[in-house]
């Protein structure tokens, strides 16, 4: 109740000094605007990086080291026995073995491709994955349906993005969505290579049928059901027993370091190339965001100093009024509270103004990027991510800056000698 009464008193002063306090609030708002803008930019860029390098904090990819003591002896490979040991590591929820297609394969496409004539020959790189790993993303059966049936294939979403943003515009081909490609078939010849110009005995003509797109699918090449790859490798006399890698899913992200240690003790290693790239880019974004946020903090600090000067001037001008407040029963604390309430209102107004400023600037920049920048791969819809945390932080920092700025003037006001103030 008392707070409401003091607020009513502060409101009168705020209205009277609206012009001067608006300048103070504007200064705080400018600093907060910069702070929120840079933080939202950092958050937006982190999301964009995550989009390019989607890394799970619960999963690790186990591979055989390229140079390992075991492999020199020729006996270190991931077979079913080692797979069982990996799956039994404490903290592992599930192990997903992956097997590379160890047989050359090519595709030659001559025909209409969504209304466009297309002539294309490509070497195919493929990896076999357990169907349950991609179950959430596939939209057509993803299992071995026999030698006479097309091979289900899942491509990485990032390949579709690269096709749409780079390949299609260069070749005048249409842009495609994943739903357009589901069920699409591409002829494939197993046992043949364009690169080495060699065809194995008894090559096999078949087809790939797109079953879906997934971030979990291999980035290089396409993903097939594990059983299909195992069958093709066996048919052509290639290794159909050992796995090229194993994806281990931990029960929690906290269990990952322990799992990594156990994997290393087995003579295997964790493939962190993609995670490392994401980490390095993420760190660069963090660093730039931090530097820009410090700049914004400096602007906010200058605004706080300006607030100090404004409130000192206000207290000087209102010495007599402060004397009146003391005469009608205000304590020193009441006088300080009135000044700090005025500062709080100034800070909150500055914070809200700053957030509006940041959102407006972000919208303008996004609009500029949308209309003036080329459509490059993984170009985000927005470079910014505003969360409620930014609103809270913006208003909170603005409030603190204003209260900090008004602290010493409020203390000076509280310490005024009322008799002297009334005699002036």
């Amino acid at each position, binding site marked *: *109740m*008392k707070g409401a*009464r*003091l607020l*009513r*008193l502060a409101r*009168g*002063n705020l*209205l*009277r*000094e609206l012009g001067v306090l608006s300048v103070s609030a504007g200064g705080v708002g400018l600093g907060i605007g910069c702070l929120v803008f840079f933080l939202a930019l950092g958050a937006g860029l982190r999301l964009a990086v995550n989009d390019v390098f989607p890394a799970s904090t619960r999963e690790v990819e186990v591979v055989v080291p390229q140079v390992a003591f075991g492999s020199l002896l020729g006996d270190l490979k991931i077979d079913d026995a080692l797979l069982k040991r990996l799956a039994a590591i404490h903290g592992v929820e599930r192990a997903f073995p992956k097997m590379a297609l160890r047989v050359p394969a090519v595709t030659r496409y001559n025909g209409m491709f969504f209304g466009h004539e297309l002539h294309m020959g490509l070497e195919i790189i493929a990896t076999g994955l357990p169907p349950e790993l991609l179950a959430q993303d596939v939209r057509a059966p993803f299992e071995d349906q026999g030698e006479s049936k097309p091979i289900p294939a899942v491509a990485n979403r990032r390949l579709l993005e690269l096709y749409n943003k780079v390949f299609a515009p260069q070749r005048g081909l249409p842009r495609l969505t994943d739903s357009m490609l589901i069920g699409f078939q591409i002829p494939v010849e197993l046992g043949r290579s364009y690169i080495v110009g060699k065809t194995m005995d008894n090559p096999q003509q078949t087809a790939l049928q797109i079953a879906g797109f997934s971030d979990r699918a291999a980035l290089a090449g396409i993903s097939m059901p594990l059983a299909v790859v195992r069958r093709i490798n066996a048919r052509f006399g290639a290794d159909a027993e050992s796995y090229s890698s194993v994806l281990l899913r931990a029960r929690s992200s906290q269990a990952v370091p322990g799992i990594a240690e156990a994997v290393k003790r087995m003579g295997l290693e964790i493939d962190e190339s993609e995670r490392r790239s994401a980490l390095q880019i993420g760190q660069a974004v963090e660093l730039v965001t931090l530097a820009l946020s410090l700049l914004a903090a400096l602007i906010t600090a200058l605004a706080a100093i300006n607030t100090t000067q404004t409130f000192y001037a206000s207290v000087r001008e209102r010495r*007599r*009024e402060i*004397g*009146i*407040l*003391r*005469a*009608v*029963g*205000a*304590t*020193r*604390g*009441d006088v300080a509270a009135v000044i700090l309430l005025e500062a709080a209102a100034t800070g909150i107004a500055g914070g809200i103004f700053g957030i509006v400023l940041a959102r407006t600037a972000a919208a303008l920049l996004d609009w500029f990027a949308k209309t003036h920048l080329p459509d490059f791969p993984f170009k985000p819809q927005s470079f910014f991510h505003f969360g409620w945390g930014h609103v809270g932080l913006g208003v909170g920092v603005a409030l603190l800056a204003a209260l900090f700025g008004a602290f010493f003037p409020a203390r000076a006001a509280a310490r005024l*000698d*009322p*008799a002297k103030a*009334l*005699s002036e």
Partner: protein
Amino acid sequence: MTELAAKLVAVEKRYPPREPGAAPQRLFAGLDLDVARGEFVAIEGKSGSGKSTLLHILGGLDRQFAGEAYVFGQALRGLTDNQLATLRHQKLGFVFQSFNLLPGLSALDNVLLPDAFGSGVPDAARRAREALERVGLADKAKARPAALSGGERQRVAIARALLSRPPLLLADEPTGNLDATTGEGVIALFRELHKEGMTLLIVTHEVRVSHAAERVLVLREGKLVPGEEGT
């Protein structure tokens, strides 16, 4: 023995010397004052004689003095800053020569000012309207001080002093900035308050105010001496 509303005992007040090496200026030299509850006392004196300082000491606003000051039996020297604020809030009303209204607030909000402090004033909104009605400004409740005449501003200031119904009203040259007619209105209001039992201590240099008082004292050479009696 009549209970005293205000009492000063051997009060001395000095101001720092105006020039280095000079002697401190002595304003009061062993000043004594007794004001009985319900009394209407006027204190006259020349400009600079210390009339305002006397009120500031009694109101606990000026604590830099020697001697003792009591308000309704409470020794002001023993009170903390917050206790003095409570005393002012509950037992004292101040009226100043220059009105001292807050320019950012309406007349009604100025009257309500004491309600913002301490434990507030019971039924403050109704009391504020009654106080404005009593000083004849019920229709000016929403007006800002800048839109009021000098007499109206002083009446708002009196209404503010009356909000918490204090038993002791301290007025510093309350008619000093008013014309004769408006000043008479204010004096009439003081008479009414006195009749209702309020203790009034008014410092003035105007004879018409002194005539309204029961007792007149003159502040001369740092001491209070009896002056010409009022009504």
